[in-house]
Protein backbone atom coordinates (compact mmCIF):
# COMPACT_ATOMS: atom_id res chain seq x y z
CA UNK A 1 0.00 0.00 0.00
CA UNK A 2 1.35 3.36 -1.05
CA UNK A 3 0.22 6.88 -0.17
CA UNK A 4 0.83 10.44 -1.28
CA UNK A 5 2.94 12.65 1.01
CA UNK A 6 0.71 15.64 0.23
CA UNK A 7 -2.73 16.37 -1.19
CA UNK A 8 -2.59 16.59 -4.98
CA UNK A 9 -1.67 20.11 -6.07
CA UNK A 10 -1.97 21.34 -9.63
CA UNK A 11 -3.94 19.90 -12.53
CA UNK A 12 -5.47 16.44 -12.32
CA UNK A 13 -7.02 14.01 -14.79
CA UNK A 14 -9.65 11.33 -14.21
CA UNK A 15 -8.72 7.80 -15.17
CA UNK A 16 -10.36 4.44 -14.58
CA UNK A 17 -8.40 1.82 -12.64
CA UNK A 18 -10.00 -1.63 -12.55
CA UNK A 19 -13.48 -0.12 -12.81
CA UNK A 20 -13.02 2.77 -10.37
CA UNK A 21 -12.78 6.40 -11.49
CA UNK A 22 -9.76 8.03 -9.84
CA UNK A 23 -8.33 11.55 -9.87
CA UNK A 24 -4.58 11.57 -10.39
CA UNK A 25 -1.99 14.30 -11.04
CA UNK A 26 -1.33 15.10 -14.68
CA UNK A 27 1.95 13.61 -15.88
CA UNK A 28 2.02 10.81 -13.30
CA UNK A 29 2.98 7.33 -14.44
CA UNK A 30 0.34 4.61 -14.67
CA UNK A 31 2.40 2.52 -12.22
CA UNK A 32 2.41 5.25 -9.57
CA UNK A 33 -1.35 5.75 -9.98
CA UNK A 34 -1.96 2.00 -9.67
CA UNK A 35 0.19 1.72 -6.53
CA UNK A 36 -1.55 4.63 -4.78
CA UNK A 37 -4.89 3.08 -5.72
CA UNK A 38 -3.91 0.05 -3.58
CA UNK A 39 -4.03 -2.31 -6.51
CA UNK A 40 -1.67 -4.72 -4.68
CA UNK A 41 -0.63 -6.77 -7.69
CA UNK A 42 -0.59 -5.28 -11.19
CA UNK A 43 -0.30 -8.45 -13.30
CA UNK A 44 -0.28 -12.21 -13.07
CA UNK A 45 2.41 -14.26 -14.80
CA UNK A 46 1.57 -16.14 -17.99
CA UNK A 47 2.95 -19.48 -16.74
CA UNK A 48 2.00 -20.01 -13.08
CA UNK A 49 -0.46 -17.12 -12.68
CA UNK A 50 1.53 -15.71 -9.75
CA UNK A 51 0.82 -12.09 -8.80
CA UNK A 52 3.50 -9.48 -9.52
CA UNK A 53 3.92 -5.74 -8.96
CA UNK A 54 6.31 -3.01 -10.16
CA UNK A 55 9.94 -3.68 -9.22
CA UNK A 56 12.31 -1.22 -10.94
CA UNK A 57 10.13 1.79 -11.96
CA UNK A 58 12.68 2.62 -14.68
CA UNK A 59 11.68 0.39 -17.56
CA UNK A 60 14.17 -2.47 -17.22
CA UNK A 61 12.31 -5.26 -15.40
CA UNK A 62 8.98 -5.48 -17.30
CA UNK A 63 7.21 -6.61 -14.11
CA UNK A 64 4.70 -3.75 -14.28
CA UNK A 65 3.04 -4.81 -17.56
CA UNK A 66 -0.62 -3.72 -17.55
CA UNK A 67 -3.51 -3.25 -19.98
CA UNK A 68 -3.85 0.41 -20.92
CA UNK A 69 -6.91 1.37 -23.01
CA UNK A 70 -7.26 -2.25 -24.06
CA UNK A 71 -3.64 -2.70 -25.17
CA UNK A 72 -1.84 -5.38 -23.16
CA UNK A 73 1.89 -5.44 -22.31
CA UNK A 74 2.26 -1.74 -21.57
CA UNK A 75 5.08 -0.84 -19.19
CA UNK A 76 3.06 0.99 -16.53
CA UNK A 77 6.16 2.75 -15.16
CA UNK A 78 6.91 4.29 -18.58
CA UNK A 79 3.39 5.35 -19.61
CA UNK A 80 1.91 8.64 -18.40
CA UNK A 81 -1.75 8.95 -17.43
CA UNK A 82 -4.13 10.70 -19.84
CA UNK A 83 -7.67 11.91 -19.19
CA UNK A 84 -10.16 9.10 -19.72
CA UNK A 85 -7.53 6.34 -19.72
CA UNK A 86 -8.65 2.85 -18.69
CA UNK A 87 -6.14 0.78 -16.76
CA UNK A 88 -6.52 -2.89 -15.92
CA UNK A 89 -4.33 -5.53 -14.38
CA UNK A 90 -2.85 -7.81 -17.02
CA UNK A 91 -3.92 -11.42 -16.55
CA UNK A 92 -1.29 -13.78 -17.98
CA UNK A 93 -0.23 -12.87 -21.51
CA UNK A 94 -3.01 -10.25 -21.61
CA UNK A 95 -5.35 -9.18 -24.37
CA UNK A 96 -7.88 -11.51 -25.98
CA UNK A 97 -5.65 -14.55 -25.36
CA UNK A 98 -5.98 -14.14 -21.60
Amino acid at each position, binding site marked *: *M*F*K*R*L*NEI*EGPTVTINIEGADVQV*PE*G*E*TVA*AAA*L*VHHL*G*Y*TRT*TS*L*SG*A*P*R*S*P*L*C*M*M*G*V*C*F*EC*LMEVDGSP*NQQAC*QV*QVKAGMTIRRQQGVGGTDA
Partner: protein
Amino acid sequence: MPKSYQLVVIGAGPGGLCAATTAAQLGMDVVVLDEQSSPGGQIYRAITRTPADRSALLGADYQRGASLVEAFKTSGAQYWPQTTVWSLNAQHQIGILRQGQASIIQAERVIVASGAMERPVPFPGWTLPGVMNVGAAQILLKTSGVVPASGMVIAGTGPLPLLVAWQYLRAGVSVKAILECSPTNNLWRAAPRLPQALRAGDYIARGLKYTVDLLKGGVPIYYGVSRLQAQGNDQVEAVNFGWERFGIARQKTLSTNHLLVHFGVIPRTNLTRSAGCHHVWDRGQQCWCPQVDEWGNTNVPGLAVVGDNAGIGGARSAEHSGRLAALEAARSVHLISRQQRDSQGQDDQNWMRKDLRVRPFLETLYRLPDSLLVPSDDDTIVCRCEEISAGAIRRAVHEGHSDPNQVKFFLRCGMGPCQGRQCASVVAHMVAAENKRPVSDYPPFRVRPPIRPLSIAQLADLGGAEE
Protein backbone atom coordinates in the same frame (compact mmCIF):
# COMPACT_ATOMS: atom_id res chain seq x y z
CA MET B 1 17.98 6.91 -46.40
CA PRO B 2 17.58 7.40 -42.63
CA LYS B 3 17.82 10.98 -41.38
CA SER B 4 21.34 11.77 -40.21
CA TYR B 5 22.57 13.74 -37.18
CA GLN B 6 26.10 14.81 -36.29
CA LEU B 7 25.96 13.61 -32.67
CA VAL B 8 23.31 11.49 -30.99
CA VAL B 9 23.45 11.18 -27.21
CA ILE B 10 21.46 8.31 -25.69
CA GLY B 11 20.30 9.18 -22.18
CA ALA B 12 19.73 12.44 -20.29
CA GLY B 13 21.27 11.82 -16.89
CA PRO B 14 24.31 13.82 -15.72
CA GLY B 15 26.63 12.13 -18.28
CA GLY B 16 24.34 12.59 -21.26
CA LEU B 17 23.33 16.13 -20.30
CA CYS B 18 26.93 17.32 -19.88
CA ALA B 19 28.04 15.59 -23.10
CA ALA B 20 25.19 17.19 -25.07
CA THR B 21 25.63 20.63 -23.51
CA THR B 22 29.38 20.73 -24.15
CA ALA B 23 29.12 19.41 -27.72
CA ALA B 24 26.31 21.83 -28.64
CA GLN B 25 28.24 24.75 -27.14
CA LEU B 26 31.20 23.79 -29.32
CA GLY B 27 28.96 24.03 -32.37
CA MET B 28 27.86 20.43 -32.92
CA ASP B 29 24.40 19.45 -34.13
CA VAL B 30 23.20 17.34 -31.17
CA VAL B 31 20.11 15.23 -30.52
CA VAL B 32 19.46 13.70 -27.09
CA LEU B 33 17.24 10.61 -26.91
CA ASP B 34 15.58 10.14 -23.51
CA GLU B 35 13.25 7.37 -22.34
CA GLN B 36 11.80 9.67 -19.71
CA SER B 37 9.47 12.62 -20.18
CA SER B 38 11.85 15.21 -18.71
CA PRO B 39 15.67 15.43 -18.46
CA GLY B 40 17.69 14.37 -15.40
CA GLY B 41 18.10 10.60 -15.70
CA GLN B 42 17.28 8.45 -12.68
CA ILE B 43 19.50 10.42 -10.26
CA TYR B 44 17.83 13.76 -11.04
CA ARG B 45 14.53 12.23 -12.10
CA ALA B 46 11.72 14.81 -12.53
CA ILE B 47 14.09 17.60 -11.38
CA THR B 48 12.30 20.18 -13.56
CA ARG B 49 8.86 19.24 -12.26
CA THR B 50 9.44 18.53 -8.56
CA PRO B 51 7.75 21.00 -6.18
CA ALA B 52 10.16 23.03 -4.02
CA ASP B 53 9.24 21.33 -0.72
CA ARG B 54 9.87 17.86 -2.12
CA SER B 55 13.12 18.98 -3.72
CA ALA B 56 14.27 20.38 -0.36
CA LEU B 57 13.40 17.08 1.32
CA LEU B 58 15.46 15.11 -1.22
CA GLY B 59 18.56 17.17 -0.35
CA ALA B 60 21.23 19.32 -1.98
CA ASP B 61 22.68 16.46 -4.05
CA TYR B 62 19.38 16.14 -5.89
CA GLN B 63 19.01 19.87 -6.46
CA ARG B 64 22.36 19.93 -8.27
CA GLY B 65 20.54 18.45 -11.29
CA ALA B 66 18.61 21.69 -11.85
CA SER B 67 21.72 23.61 -12.95
CA LEU B 68 22.73 20.80 -15.34
CA VAL B 69 19.29 20.85 -16.98
CA GLU B 70 19.36 24.67 -17.16
CA ALA B 71 22.70 24.65 -19.01
CA PHE B 72 21.42 21.90 -21.31
CA LYS B 73 18.24 23.81 -22.20
CA THR B 74 20.17 26.88 -23.35
CA SER B 75 22.87 24.90 -25.20
CA GLY B 76 21.00 24.46 -28.46
CA ALA B 77 20.91 20.65 -28.27
CA GLN B 78 17.63 19.04 -29.39
CA TYR B 79 15.76 17.04 -26.76
CA TRP B 80 13.52 14.10 -27.69
CA PRO B 81 11.65 12.90 -24.58
CA GLN B 82 9.83 9.55 -24.29
CA THR B 83 12.03 8.09 -26.99
CA THR B 84 13.21 4.52 -26.47
CA VAL B 85 16.13 2.99 -28.32
CA TRP B 86 15.57 -0.58 -29.55
CA SER B 87 18.67 -1.03 -31.64
CA LEU B 88 22.21 0.29 -32.04
CA ASN B 89 24.86 -1.07 -34.38
CA ALA B 90 28.52 -0.40 -35.14
CA GLN B 91 27.50 1.70 -38.17
CA HIS B 92 25.76 4.16 -35.77
CA GLN B 93 22.27 3.29 -37.00
CA ILE B 94 19.87 3.77 -34.11
CA GLY B 95 16.42 2.21 -33.98
CA ILE B 96 14.07 4.41 -31.99
CA LEU B 97 10.44 4.34 -30.89
CA ARG B 98 8.87 7.77 -30.48
CA GLN B 99 5.17 8.51 -30.05
CA GLY B 100 4.36 4.93 -31.05
CA GLN B 101 6.30 5.26 -34.31
CA ALA B 102 9.40 3.15 -34.91
CA SER B 103 12.14 4.56 -37.12
CA ILE B 104 15.87 4.38 -37.73
CA ILE B 105 18.15 7.39 -37.54
CA GLN B 106 21.80 7.67 -38.54
CA ALA B 107 24.45 9.35 -36.39
CA GLU B 108 27.95 10.46 -37.35
CA ARG B 109 28.94 9.89 -33.73
CA VAL B 110 27.15 8.31 -30.79
CA ILE B 111 27.60 8.88 -27.06
CA VAL B 112 25.86 6.18 -25.04
CA ALA B 113 24.83 7.46 -21.60
CA SER B 114 22.11 5.00 -20.68
CA GLY B 115 23.34 4.72 -17.10
CA ALA B 116 23.05 1.89 -14.65
CA MET B 117 20.38 -0.36 -13.16
CA GLU B 118 20.00 -1.85 -9.71
CA ARG B 119 21.77 -5.21 -9.53
CA PRO B 120 19.22 -8.03 -9.49
CA VAL B 121 19.83 -10.37 -6.52
CA PRO B 122 17.30 -13.21 -6.26
CA PHE B 123 16.30 -14.44 -2.78
CA PRO B 124 13.31 -16.47 -1.57
CA GLY B 125 10.15 -14.40 -2.00
CA TRP B 126 11.70 -11.61 -4.12
CA THR B 127 8.91 -11.91 -6.72
CA LEU B 128 6.12 -11.21 -4.21
CA PRO B 129 4.15 -7.97 -4.63
CA GLY B 130 5.46 -5.60 -1.97
CA VAL B 131 9.10 -6.26 -2.80
CA MET B 132 10.47 -3.30 -4.72
CA ASN B 133 13.93 -1.93 -5.49
CA VAL B 134 15.09 0.93 -3.25
CA GLY B 135 15.88 3.02 -6.32
CA ALA B 136 12.37 2.34 -7.65
CA ALA B 137 10.83 3.56 -4.39
CA GLN B 138 13.03 6.66 -4.61
CA ILE B 139 11.79 7.30 -8.17
CA LEU B 140 8.20 7.22 -6.81
CA LEU B 141 9.24 9.75 -4.17
CA LYS B 142 10.99 12.03 -6.69
CA THR B 143 8.36 11.92 -9.42
CA SER B 144 5.10 11.70 -7.47
CA GLY B 145 5.76 12.19 -3.77
CA VAL B 146 4.45 8.63 -3.34
CA VAL B 147 5.75 6.56 -0.40
CA PRO B 148 4.96 3.23 1.28
CA ALA B 149 1.92 3.72 3.51
CA SER B 150 3.13 1.54 6.36
CA GLY B 151 6.53 0.90 7.95
CA MET B 152 8.88 -0.64 5.43
CA VAL B 153 11.99 -2.76 5.81
CA ILE B 154 14.97 -1.73 3.69
CA ALA B 155 17.52 -4.44 2.94
CA GLY B 156 20.71 -4.67 0.92
CA THR B 157 24.07 -3.01 0.50
CA GLY B 158 25.58 0.26 -0.62
CA PRO B 159 24.99 3.92 0.09
CA LEU B 160 21.54 4.21 -1.54
CA PRO B 161 19.52 2.40 1.18
CA LEU B 162 20.94 4.84 3.77
CA LEU B 163 20.13 7.87 1.62
CA VAL B 164 16.57 6.79 0.85
CA ALA B 165 15.89 5.82 4.48
CA TRP B 166 17.21 9.25 5.50
CA GLN B 167 14.91 10.94 2.95
CA TYR B 168 11.94 8.97 4.33
CA LEU B 169 12.89 9.99 7.86
CA ARG B 170 12.87 13.66 6.80
CA ALA B 171 9.49 13.13 5.13
CA GLY B 172 8.07 11.59 8.32
CA VAL B 173 7.65 8.17 6.68
CA SER B 174 8.12 5.23 9.02
CA VAL B 175 11.16 2.99 8.39
CA LYS B 176 10.87 -0.21 10.41
CA ALA B 177 14.46 -1.38 10.00
CA ILE B 178 17.51 -1.32 7.77
CA LEU B 179 19.16 -4.65 7.05
CA GLU B 180 22.79 -4.24 5.93
CA CYS B 181 23.60 -7.38 3.93
CA SER B 182 27.32 -6.96 3.23
CA PRO B 183 29.56 -9.23 5.34
CA THR B 184 30.84 -7.51 8.50
CA ASN B 185 34.48 -8.40 7.73
CA ASN B 186 34.27 -6.26 4.55
CA LEU B 187 34.95 -3.32 6.87
CA TRP B 188 38.45 -4.59 7.76
CA ARG B 189 39.29 -5.16 4.11
CA ALA B 190 38.00 -1.70 3.20
CA ALA B 191 39.75 0.14 6.05
CA PRO B 192 43.16 0.49 4.27
CA ARG B 193 41.35 2.27 1.41
CA LEU B 194 39.71 4.79 3.73
CA PRO B 195 42.46 7.48 3.75
CA GLN B 196 42.33 7.66 -0.05
CA ALA B 197 38.49 7.75 0.02
CA LEU B 198 38.50 10.68 2.43
CA ARG B 199 40.35 12.73 -0.19
CA ALA B 200 37.54 12.27 -2.75
CA GLY B 201 35.06 14.68 -1.19
CA ASP B 202 32.51 14.45 1.58
CA TYR B 203 31.08 11.00 0.65
CA ILE B 204 32.16 9.28 3.85
CA ALA B 205 31.05 12.18 6.05
CA ARG B 206 27.60 12.13 4.48
CA GLY B 207 27.26 8.35 4.88
CA LEU B 208 28.08 8.75 8.58
CA LYS B 209 25.62 11.63 8.91
CA TYR B 210 22.80 9.56 7.38
CA THR B 211 23.63 6.68 9.72
CA VAL B 212 23.74 8.87 12.82
CA ASP B 213 20.50 10.67 11.87
CA LEU B 214 18.76 7.34 11.29
CA LEU B 215 19.91 5.92 14.62
CA LYS B 216 18.88 9.15 16.38
CA GLY B 217 15.54 8.90 14.59
CA GLY B 218 15.00 5.47 16.15
CA VAL B 219 15.55 3.37 13.01
CA PRO B 220 17.25 0.08 13.94
CA ILE B 221 20.11 -0.98 11.66
CA TYR B 222 21.00 -4.68 11.59
CA TYR B 223 24.52 -5.51 10.35
CA GLY B 224 25.86 -8.72 8.85
CA VAL B 225 22.44 -9.79 7.58
CA SER B 226 22.21 -13.11 5.73
CA ARG B 227 19.55 -15.57 4.50
CA LEU B 228 17.14 -12.78 3.59
CA GLN B 229 13.60 -14.03 2.87
CA ALA B 230 10.33 -12.33 1.99
CA GLN B 231 7.37 -14.33 3.30
CA GLY B 232 3.70 -14.21 2.35
CA ASN B 233 1.16 -15.74 -0.01
CA ASP B 234 0.08 -13.12 -2.53
CA GLN B 235 1.87 -10.20 -0.86
CA VAL B 236 4.83 -9.66 1.47
CA GLU B 237 3.70 -10.20 5.04
CA ALA B 238 7.04 -10.61 6.81
CA VAL B 239 10.78 -10.48 6.32
CA ASN B 240 12.95 -13.17 7.83
CA PHE B 241 16.75 -12.92 8.17
CA GLY B 242 19.84 -13.96 10.07
CA TRP B 243 22.17 -11.38 11.59
CA GLU B 244 25.16 -11.16 13.89
CA ARG B 245 25.94 -9.30 17.07
CA PHE B 246 29.33 -9.68 18.79
CA GLY B 247 29.91 -12.68 16.56
CA ILE B 248 26.77 -14.48 17.72
CA ALA B 249 24.34 -15.54 14.97
CA ARG B 250 20.69 -14.65 15.50
CA GLN B 251 17.46 -15.04 13.57
CA LYS B 252 14.70 -12.44 13.31
CA THR B 253 11.31 -11.95 11.66
CA LEU B 254 9.77 -8.52 11.08
CA SER B 255 6.19 -8.14 9.91
CA THR B 256 5.78 -5.66 7.05
CA ASN B 257 4.01 -5.22 3.70
CA HIS B 258 7.00 -3.48 2.13
CA LEU B 259 10.47 -4.82 1.56
CA LEU B 260 12.73 -2.44 -0.37
CA VAL B 261 15.96 -4.01 -1.65
CA HIS B 262 19.17 -2.67 -3.18
CA PHE B 263 22.43 -4.48 -3.96
CA GLY B 264 24.38 -1.76 -5.73
CA VAL B 265 24.14 -0.81 -9.39
CA ILE B 266 25.62 -2.26 -12.60
CA PRO B 267 25.98 -0.66 -16.05
CA ARG B 268 23.17 -1.22 -18.54
CA THR B 269 25.08 -2.97 -21.30
CA ASN B 270 22.36 -4.05 -23.77
CA LEU B 271 23.07 -1.20 -26.20
CA THR B 272 26.86 -1.44 -26.09
CA ARG B 273 26.68 -5.21 -26.45
CA SER B 274 24.38 -5.06 -29.45
CA ALA B 275 26.74 -2.50 -31.04
CA GLY B 276 29.65 -4.93 -30.63
CA CYS B 277 31.67 -3.01 -28.04
CA HIS B 278 34.30 -4.92 -26.06
CA HIS B 279 33.37 -5.46 -22.42
CA VAL B 280 35.67 -6.29 -19.54
CA TRP B 281 34.92 -7.92 -16.21
CA ASP B 282 35.50 -5.40 -13.44
CA ARG B 283 36.60 -7.31 -10.34
CA GLY B 284 35.97 -4.38 -8.00
CA GLN B 285 32.47 -3.70 -9.27
CA GLN B 286 31.68 -7.41 -9.82
CA CYS B 287 30.13 -6.76 -13.24
CA TRP B 288 30.83 -6.35 -16.97
CA CYS B 289 31.66 -2.85 -18.19
CA PRO B 290 32.24 -1.54 -21.73
CA GLN B 291 35.97 -1.01 -22.31
CA VAL B 292 36.64 2.72 -22.76
CA ASP B 293 39.65 5.03 -22.88
CA GLU B 294 39.93 8.35 -20.98
CA TRP B 295 37.73 10.06 -23.62
CA GLY B 296 35.02 7.41 -23.44
CA ASN B 297 36.01 5.86 -26.80
CA THR B 298 35.14 2.18 -27.28
CA ASN B 299 36.66 -0.20 -29.83
CA VAL B 300 33.79 0.77 -32.19
CA PRO B 301 34.97 3.91 -34.04
CA GLY B 302 32.81 6.96 -33.30
CA LEU B 303 30.95 5.30 -30.44
CA ALA B 304 31.68 6.48 -26.89
CA VAL B 305 30.21 5.50 -23.53
CA VAL B 306 30.05 7.86 -20.54
CA GLY B 307 28.90 7.98 -16.93
CA ASP B 308 27.82 4.91 -14.97
CA ASN B 309 27.14 3.17 -18.29
CA ALA B 310 30.94 2.83 -18.65
CA GLY B 311 31.47 1.56 -15.07
CA ILE B 312 30.04 2.81 -11.81
CA GLY B 313 31.62 6.14 -10.82
CA GLY B 314 28.63 8.12 -9.57
CA ALA B 315 26.80 11.22 -10.74
CA ARG B 316 29.66 13.71 -10.35
CA SER B 317 32.16 11.65 -12.33
CA ALA B 318 29.47 11.14 -14.97
CA GLU B 319 29.41 14.90 -15.61
CA HIS B 320 33.15 14.97 -16.24
CA SER B 321 33.19 11.89 -18.43
CA GLY B 322 30.32 13.35 -20.47
CA ARG B 323 32.28 16.54 -21.11
CA LEU B 324 35.42 14.60 -22.04
CA ALA B 325 33.54 12.53 -24.63
CA ALA B 326 32.00 15.72 -26.06
CA LEU B 327 35.44 17.32 -26.44
CA GLU B 328 36.62 14.20 -28.25
CA ALA B 329 33.54 14.30 -30.51
CA ALA B 330 34.20 17.96 -31.36
CA ARG B 331 37.84 17.13 -32.10
CA SER B 332 36.82 14.31 -34.41
CA VAL B 333 34.85 16.71 -36.60
CA HIS B 334 37.65 19.32 -36.47
CA LEU B 335 35.73 21.91 -34.45
CA ILE B 336 38.61 21.95 -31.97
CA SER B 337 42.21 20.79 -32.25
CA ARG B 338 43.78 17.94 -30.33
CA GLN B 339 45.64 20.52 -28.19
CA GLN B 340 42.38 22.34 -27.40
CA ARG B 341 40.71 19.06 -26.46
CA ASP B 342 43.59 18.15 -24.16
CA SER B 343 43.77 21.54 -22.45
CA GLN B 344 39.98 21.92 -22.06
CA GLY B 345 39.71 18.39 -20.71
CA GLN B 346 42.46 18.82 -18.12
CA ASP B 347 40.19 20.02 -15.30
CA ASP B 348 37.62 17.31 -15.92
CA GLN B 349 40.28 14.61 -15.85
CA ASN B 350 41.69 15.97 -12.59
CA TRP B 351 38.25 16.21 -10.99
CA MET B 352 37.33 12.73 -12.11
CA ARG B 353 40.53 11.22 -10.72
CA LYS B 354 39.87 12.91 -7.37
CA ASP B 355 36.19 11.93 -7.27
CA LEU B 356 36.86 8.27 -8.13
CA ARG B 357 39.20 7.86 -5.11
CA VAL B 358 36.19 6.90 -3.00
CA ARG B 359 35.35 3.92 -5.23
CA PRO B 360 37.88 1.29 -4.03
CA PHE B 361 36.66 1.86 -0.45
CA LEU B 362 32.96 1.63 -1.36
CA GLU B 363 33.50 -1.37 -3.63
CA THR B 364 35.31 -3.26 -0.88
CA LEU B 365 32.94 -2.21 1.90
CA TYR B 366 29.87 -3.24 -0.09
CA ARG B 367 31.36 -6.22 -1.93
CA LEU B 368 28.71 -8.89 -2.36
CA PRO B 369 29.52 -12.36 -0.99
CA ASP B 370 28.93 -15.48 -3.13
CA SER B 371 25.87 -16.22 -0.99
CA LEU B 372 24.13 -13.21 -2.58
CA LEU B 373 25.50 -13.58 -6.10
CA VAL B 374 24.48 -17.25 -6.33
CA PRO B 375 21.03 -18.12 -4.93
CA SER B 376 21.37 -21.21 -2.73
CA ASP B 377 17.69 -22.12 -2.40
CA ASP B 378 16.61 -24.23 -5.42
CA ASP B 379 13.04 -22.88 -5.37
CA THR B 380 14.09 -19.23 -5.77
CA ILE B 381 12.98 -17.79 -9.11
CA VAL B 382 15.96 -16.44 -11.09
CA CYS B 383 14.36 -15.54 -14.44
CA ARG B 384 11.28 -13.58 -13.36
CA CYS B 385 9.76 -13.42 -16.86
CA GLU B 386 9.91 -17.13 -17.70
CA GLU B 387 9.73 -18.24 -14.05
CA ILE B 388 12.89 -20.36 -14.16
CA SER B 389 14.16 -21.43 -10.73
CA ALA B 390 17.71 -21.64 -9.43
CA GLY B 391 17.27 -25.42 -9.17
CA ALA B 392 16.35 -25.75 -12.85
CA ILE B 393 19.41 -23.73 -13.85
CA ARG B 394 21.72 -25.82 -11.65
CA ARG B 395 20.26 -29.03 -13.13
CA ALA B 396 20.81 -27.71 -16.65
CA VAL B 397 24.46 -27.01 -15.86
CA HIS B 398 24.91 -30.49 -14.37
CA GLU B 399 23.36 -31.99 -17.49
CA GLY B 400 26.10 -30.37 -19.58
CA HIS B 401 24.77 -26.95 -20.54
CA SER B 402 27.95 -25.41 -19.26
CA ASP B 403 27.73 -21.85 -20.58
CA PRO B 404 25.14 -19.11 -19.91
CA ASN B 405 23.96 -19.03 -23.54
CA GLN B 406 23.45 -22.82 -23.59
CA VAL B 407 21.41 -22.55 -20.38
CA LYS B 408 19.37 -19.80 -22.02
CA PHE B 409 18.63 -21.89 -25.15
CA PHE B 410 17.71 -24.90 -23.04
CA LEU B 411 15.50 -23.21 -20.42
CA ARG B 412 14.40 -19.93 -22.06
CA CYS B 413 15.77 -17.94 -19.11
CA GLY B 414 16.53 -14.48 -20.48
CA MET B 415 14.09 -14.82 -23.38
CA GLY B 416 11.09 -13.10 -21.75
CA PRO B 417 10.03 -9.46 -22.08
CA CYS B 418 12.97 -8.08 -20.05
CA GLN B 419 15.37 -9.95 -22.36
CA GLY B 420 17.71 -11.08 -19.63
CA ARG B 421 18.19 -7.73 -17.93
CA GLN B 422 17.13 -9.25 -14.59
CA CYS B 423 18.76 -12.70 -14.85
CA ALA B 424 21.84 -12.41 -17.10
CA SER B 425 24.31 -11.70 -14.32
CA VAL B 426 22.76 -14.25 -11.96
CA VAL B 427 22.84 -17.06 -14.54
CA ALA B 428 26.49 -16.20 -15.34
CA HIS B 429 27.42 -16.37 -11.63
CA MET B 430 25.52 -19.65 -11.20
CA VAL B 431 27.17 -21.33 -14.20
CA ALA B 432 30.59 -20.18 -12.98
CA ALA B 433 29.95 -21.38 -9.43
CA GLU B 434 28.74 -24.82 -10.58
CA ASN B 435 31.79 -25.21 -12.82
CA LYS B 436 34.10 -23.78 -10.10
CA ARG B 437 35.55 -21.22 -12.48
CA PRO B 438 35.65 -17.41 -12.38
CA VAL B 439 32.57 -15.73 -13.85
CA SER B 440 34.79 -13.69 -16.17
CA ASP B 441 35.49 -16.95 -18.07
CA TYR B 442 31.94 -17.00 -19.42
CA PRO B 443 30.42 -14.83 -22.11
CA PRO B 444 27.12 -13.42 -20.83
CA PHE B 445 23.87 -13.71 -22.80
CA ARG B 446 24.15 -12.56 -26.40
CA VAL B 447 22.14 -9.41 -27.13
CA ARG B 448 20.32 -8.96 -30.41
CA PRO B 449 17.99 -6.21 -31.65
CA PRO B 450 15.29 -5.32 -31.04
CA ILE B 451 16.57 -4.90 -27.48
CA ARG B 452 13.07 -3.75 -26.42
CA PRO B 453 9.81 -5.39 -27.48
CA LEU B 454 8.30 -3.86 -30.62
CA SER B 455 4.93 -4.77 -32.07
CA ILE B 456 4.79 -6.33 -35.54
CA ALA B 457 2.75 -3.30 -36.65
CA GLN B 458 5.52 -0.95 -35.48
CA LEU B 459 8.15 -3.00 -37.32
CA ALA B 460 6.01 -3.21 -40.47
CA ASP B 461 5.60 0.55 -40.44
CA LEU B 462 9.38 1.08 -40.27
CA GLY B 463 9.83 1.50 -44.04
CA GLY B 464 7.07 4.10 -44.14
CA ALA B 465 8.75 6.12 -41.41
CA GLU B 466 12.01 6.36 -43.34
CA GLU B 467 10.51 7.62 -46.60
